[in-house]
């Protein structure tokens, strides 16, 4: 009865607090509370949770305990209460012991997660690995140097702190060890998330699994200073906070959830996964009748705060409210408010009145909703991509990228995965996941339904792109953790039952930790009401603690009521079967561990920048050609020289060689990548033109033919052709294929053999072995002896893996050949006409070789009635025939101006885009009459 009084005190207290601070919540959920109906409110609120339906006795208040116990025999009651009181002291000790144990296990998991990723540092060296992370490295370097440590650049703050403690840590060291650190954090976050779903046992299992899941290791070995490593932690932690808020209804966690979401937005573009998954779950809860005030608290602040914060991130900005990726969250936001309103009205009106109101509101509301939705759809549908960004579209429609964006499709990690890659990346988890899903349904709670939703969506996404396997991995770990812990529970429980006998199992089950399923069920059962209370009281932490203690006491009293149920629910397996089952599970786990260690040590740790091979005497031969080339560039070229290479090596060149590159790993700049792709696929002379116009001094190609390094530029060449051809249509993929086959031997097409990439790769290659045998393609090369006319080999690394060429100075060319090659000219015309469709009309007729050129010209200019125009055109034409692109561009532009195809303003824009600003000078000189206006836009 004492407990009753306490509970009353709390409830009144909470009401006092709540009326002031959370009116909506108080009204929606607790307005109906008064003392006599306290019990009913508890049972009604807890009936929202599935767990309690199966175990109604555990939801009873201590007040009902005597009545319940009366039903049992008096002797049994005495025995039970005695055992309960006996175990009470022991139990707190056990409880504390369990916590300490869990803490140390978590610590060990963290150490494991960190250290399993150090293979790369131990086997190789502490260096940043992949091509991408060098960008991040540079950004970090820049930020630390300039002291602009933004709030969203977490590490820099940390390094500053360390510096003030006089611990010299280079930025690089911090970068190398960032990913392992965060994977330790991620495994802890997984523990908390799974604990919220299925109790600490499952949490520990899931954390251990996540700590070494190969899929995540592949992205977070030491040295892979990549966004994903951090983002997975942020993802899991955001989900944890969401579930935590959902379970507790605490606004405190809801705020943190928004902040964590913001962190995720900063770290990775994959945040859209969160902002779509959570609304989906909310919608699911609403539809299945699981709406509660906790759901509201969990969701509404996240949308409002989260979107506001996300809009602060420069990359996202207004996209946070404009693009369709975020649209779902706003829709659900509206829905949840409607639902909340309905619940509120339902609470204050009598049932009859409520029905009337419902009909009234429904008729009006549906009309309004329809209108709003229609407008929204119209707005969205008016944009070409339906408001979805290309990346998201390629997710929703797996064929989208290969159709429209070859650049996205060209990245190997954007390909759909194969079955072996599932086995490689999540291994046995793939088999445990279904079991975990089943376990989540027994019983289904808000939290477990969320996890189920998470796994289902992530399985779909991982099927679209290999890269998103990373999102699947945590979900798979959580599910498998749940499955494993459930299985162990059942098996060890039955072993214990068989060995120790019924009664002792009972008492132990009552004692708590030994059988986690009852405790987890209890904690789940108790959590909602407990936390509601604690959330309602805005008291200090200390009093919460006391409250918890009080509740522990309550729990202990509860145990006695749970006991009969525990006995009833034990599904006992035969001893042998359960021992074998445990053994097999351990075997499975061992297999997983072995696989993970192998994957970490062998498959994912090799830094792509250094390659090794075994020598015959067992030593290690190191191929350090990339760094050799970068070091050479760094020390032996001018600081402002530009280097052109395929975009994979862009960031690396920038970071290691400290030289400007034309294209880098930034996928946005499609045209530039296409330009480089075009140059690489063009003949030497045309390529020289393009590179020269881009102010490139050096061209870097990666060539693996001598040592058999398969991911070289020749193997990537088809993608260059495709991407180049996507923007400049004169590059056609079939030209490079013989009967649909990509080959470089004597059967290869002339276009292929004359392309710059082929020439730069195989220049003087035949002199190495006399035959020119390519060890990657396993064939002799097609064209063996040739000379370069526009490029000079300036450096080739020891194993020929990187070859650097310098563009010859232009004067040789002009002196030698006055005429510009026709193919280049035509290609330029075609490319520009592609880029600016309005030119089509002009350039179709533009064929300077035509005899009636001048006739055309006069005809063109007649309507302008400007006799001077002919002269001007001829000037440009003269330039054009001398091989100057300026002449060509000027010609086209002038013609366009006079024929009023394009307005003046666009001339400036176009020529600036084409990087032919000098055209403007020409034009302004030539068009005397319109000079002033042209100068106007030159000034723009």
């Amino acid at each position, binding site marked *: 009865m004492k407990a009753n009084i306490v509970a009353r005190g709390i409830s009144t207290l909470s009401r006092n607090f709540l009326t002031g601070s959370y009116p909506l919540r108080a009204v929606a959920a607790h307005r109906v509370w008064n003392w006599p109906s306290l019990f009913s409110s508890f049972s009604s609120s807890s009936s929202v949770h599935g767990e309690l339906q199966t175990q109604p006795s555990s939801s009873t208040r201590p007040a009902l305990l005597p009545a319940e116990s009366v039903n049992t025999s008096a002797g049994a009651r005495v025995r039970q209460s005695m055992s309960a009181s006996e175990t009470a002291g022991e139990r707190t000790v056990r409880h504390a012991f369990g916590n300490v144990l869990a803490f140390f296990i978590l610590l060990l998991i963290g150490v494991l997660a960190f250290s399993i990723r150090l293979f790369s540092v131990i086997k190789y*060296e502490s*260096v940043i690995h992949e091509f991408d992370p060098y960008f991040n490295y540079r950004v970090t370097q820049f930020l630390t140097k300039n002291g602009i440590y933004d709030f969203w650049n977490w590490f820099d703050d940390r390094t500053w702190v360390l510096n003030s*403690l*006089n*611990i*010299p840590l280079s930025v690089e060291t911090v970068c190398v060890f960032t990913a392992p650190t965060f994977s330790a954090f991620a495994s802890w976050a997984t523990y908390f998330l799974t604990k919220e779903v299925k109790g600490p046992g499952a949490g520990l299992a899931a954390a251990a699994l996540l700590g070494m899941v190969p899929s995540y290791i592949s992205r977070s070995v030491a040295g892979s200073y990549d966004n994903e490593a951090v983002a997975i932690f942020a993802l899991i932690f955001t989900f944890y906070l969401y579930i935590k808020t959902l379970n507790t209804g605490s606004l405190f966690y809801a705020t943190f959830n928004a902040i964590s979401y913001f962190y995720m937005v900063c770290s990775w573009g994959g945040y859209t996964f969160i902002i779509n998954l959570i609304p989906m779950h909310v919608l699911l809860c609403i539809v299945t009748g699981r709406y509660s005030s906790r759901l509201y608290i969990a969701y509404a602040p996240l949308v409002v705060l989260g979107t506001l914060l996300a809009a602060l991130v420069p990359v996202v900005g207004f996209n946070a409210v404009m693009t369709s990726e975020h649209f779902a969250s706003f829709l659900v936001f509206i829905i949840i408010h409607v639902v909340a309103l309905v619940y509120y009205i339902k609470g204050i009106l009598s049932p009859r009145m409520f029905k009337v109101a419902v009909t009234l509101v429904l008729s009006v509301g549906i009309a309004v909703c329809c209108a709003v939705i229609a407008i929204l759809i119209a707005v969205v549908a008016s944009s070409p991509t339906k408001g979805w960004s290309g990346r998201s579209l390629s997710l929703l429609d797996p064929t989208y990228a290969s159709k429209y964006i070859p650049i996205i499709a060209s990245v190997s990690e954007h390909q759909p995965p194969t079955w072996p890659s599932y086995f490689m990346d999540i291994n046995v988890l793939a088999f445990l996941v279904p079991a975990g899903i089943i376990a989540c349904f027994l019983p289904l709670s808000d939290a477990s339904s969320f996890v189920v939703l998470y796994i289902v969506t992530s399985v779909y996404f991982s099927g679209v792109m290999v890269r998103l396997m990373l999102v699947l991995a945590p979900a798979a770990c959580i599910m498998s953790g749940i499955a494993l812990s459930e299985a162990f529970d059942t098996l060890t429980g039955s072993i214990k039952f068989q060995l120790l006998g019924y009664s002792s199992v009972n008492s132990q089950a009552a004692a708590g930790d030994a059988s986690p399923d009852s405790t987890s069920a209890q904690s789940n059962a108790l959590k909602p009401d407990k936390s509601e209370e604690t959330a309602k009281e805005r*008291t*200090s932490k*200390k*009093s919460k603690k006391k409250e918890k203690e009080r509740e522990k006491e309550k729990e202990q009293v509860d145990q006695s009521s749970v006991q009969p149920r525990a006995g009833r629910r034990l599904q006992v397996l035969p001893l042998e079967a359960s021992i074998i089952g445990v053994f097999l599970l351990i075997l499975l786990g061992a297999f997983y561990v072995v696989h993970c260690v192998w994957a970490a040590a062998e498959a994912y740790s090799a830094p792509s*920048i*250094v390659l090794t091979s075994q020598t015959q005497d067992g030593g290690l031969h*190191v191929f*350090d050609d990339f*760094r*050799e080339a*970068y*070091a*050479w560039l*760094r*020390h*032996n070229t001018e600081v402002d020289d530009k280097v052109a290479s395929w975009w994979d090596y862009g960031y690396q060149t920038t*970071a*290691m060689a400290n030289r400007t590159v034309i294209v880098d790993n930034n996928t946005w700049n499609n045209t530039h990548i296409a330009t480089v792709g075009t140059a690489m696929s063009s003949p030497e002379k045309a390529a020289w033109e393009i590179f020269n116009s881009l102010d490139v001094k050096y061209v870097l190609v990666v060539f693996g033919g001598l040592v058999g390094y398969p991911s070289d530029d020749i193997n990537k060449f088809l993608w260059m052709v495709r991407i180049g051809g996507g923007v400049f249509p004169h590059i056609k993929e079939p030209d490079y294929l013989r009967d649909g086959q990509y080959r470089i031997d004597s059967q290869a097409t002339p276009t292929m053999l004359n392309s710059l990439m082929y020439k730069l790769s195989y220049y*003087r*290659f035949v*002199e*190495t072995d006399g035959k020119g045998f390519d060890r990657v393609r396993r064939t002799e090369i097609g064209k063996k002896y040739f000379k370069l006319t526009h490029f*000079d*080999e*300036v*450096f*080739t*690394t*020891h194993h*020929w893996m990187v070859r650097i060429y310098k563009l010859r100075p232009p004067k040789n060319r002009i002196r030698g050949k006055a005429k510009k090659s026709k193919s280049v000219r035509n290609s330029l015309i075609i490319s520009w006409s592609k880029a600016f469709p309005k030119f089509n009309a002009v350039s179709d007729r533009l064929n300077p070789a035509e005899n009636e050129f001048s006739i055309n010209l006069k005809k063109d200019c007649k309507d302008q009635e400007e006799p001077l125009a002919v002269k001007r055109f001829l000037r440009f034409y003269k330039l054009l025939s001398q091989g100057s692109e300026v002449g060509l561009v000027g010609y086209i532009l002038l013609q366009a101006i006079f024929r009023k195809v394009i307005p003046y303003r666009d001339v400036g824009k176009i020529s600036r885009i084409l990087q032919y600003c000098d055209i403007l000078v020409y034009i302004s000189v030539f068009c005397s009459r319109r000079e002033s206006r042209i100068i106007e836009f030159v000034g723009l």
Partner: protein
Amino acid sequence: MGQSRDSAQIEQQPYHFWIGPLKGPRPSFPLRFPLSLPVFHPPCPSNSKLCKKSSSVNARPTEEQSRAEHKAAGAESSPPIMRLLRLSLVLSSLALLSFLPASSSQDLQIVNAERRIDLSSHIIKVFLTLKVENTGTSPASEVLLAFPPTQADHLALLKAQAVIGKRKKKTYLPLDVNPAELPDGPNGTKYFSISLHNKLGAGEVATLEILYMLTHSLDPFPVEISQSESQLVYYRDSAVILSPYHIKQQTTFIKTPSSKIESFSMVEPTNRAGAELRYGPYENRSPYSYSPIIVHFENNNPFAVVEELVREVEISHWGSIQVTEQYKLAHAGARHKGVFSRVEYQSRPGSSGTSSFKHLLARLPPRVHSMYYRDEIGNISSSHLRLDSKKSELEIEPRYPLFGGWKATFVIGYGLLLEDFLFESPDGRRYLNFTFGCPLVETVVDKLTIKVVLPEGSLDPSVVVPFPVNQYLEKKYSYLDVVGRTVVVVEKENVVPEQSSPFQVYYHFSPIFMLAEPMMLTSVFFLLFVTCVAYLHIDLSIRK
């Protein structure tokens, strides 16, 4: 001295650098100094076709020389009255100056001089044997060496020793060499004085052996070569030894790395035998005689120059010394021109890229451990370390072979045992005994900085270095430092491997400072736990 000056001068080619100032008061050093009377620039030796080139190559003197020639010509054409007037002026100043205390070395003369110039690497080693006689009356305590300013700038090392006793019983006595200032050094001639241990009495003869090294004195010509060419360089010097004394007899031998000598100046008698050139013997050359010669020959030795080397020696009294050496390496030979073809470089190692180098050898102290070799973008895997009880040899390859003008940077780091290098001096101070200079073999260091990081809490550091250096103190903050570590910085320019002599850094240190950081950590953790305990036991809530 003055008696034979005119005749001597007209006969011989004068040291052409000093034909400069003709106006104003004469330099105040009259007697052992040939007066700069206007004379014709003597005609080139008939057989020396390089004479003209030599004067044009010497950029700095050329201007002065032409000006001087101009003036000389003007003076020559000036009326004899002027000449007389000038002569009288000079004489009067001589008369004035004769009252000044005479220099102790005025009466020295060199009986026999032999010079051997070794051009086989890019560090030029010159061995000079002088037999000095005191012809005056008062005992002389120092002997002066003169260098033209171009050589003096590139002079890395100068050592002298006296030879005592005759054959078979020769002993060598190292002598102090100090830069000396003579106010009237003709055209920036730099002097070094060798202080003799025993004063050279009148009529006595002493034999001195002098070794000096010149760096950056081989000028590649052609300045740019392609991969298949070999490297040709010029060496410029004088056939006769520049000296403030009269030299009775002298010979110069020049040794080139191979017999491939493109051309060389003839100053009769000149003799060539294989890889050796002999100039001389020349008899009775007056002070400051100079006859420029130029030798054009092939030198494919690696011109490895460390442009900047920072060696950081960090002492930890917990038992180790950590050395970090940051190199900026360059190939200072003829610049590489045009393409670099790997296939040629690999298939024809003998003829392609002969002047390039890809290996370097570093001699490290014995018992070196935890060696690393890396640069700013990571580890460089091409190095081999050979350890034995006397020394450690580290063979390193830069990431790429270095051709002329190419550069590379790298860092070598290693740990050493404390007891091998740190000692306690009798007065209670501790001192570090460490090697000065660059561990790389056959390299020149343009700028060497040695930083000795003393442990935190060290006091009164002082440095003992056998040659003049720049030094100052710095502070460095490392792991958990509070007051910072004292860093002794020693700087020297133009260092050659022969200067790898030990130097010492003395300082006071009390071992209690070793415990500072462990104590700090312990107390921080202690406080942390105390705070935790306190926090858990304090109830600040208002409601009870």
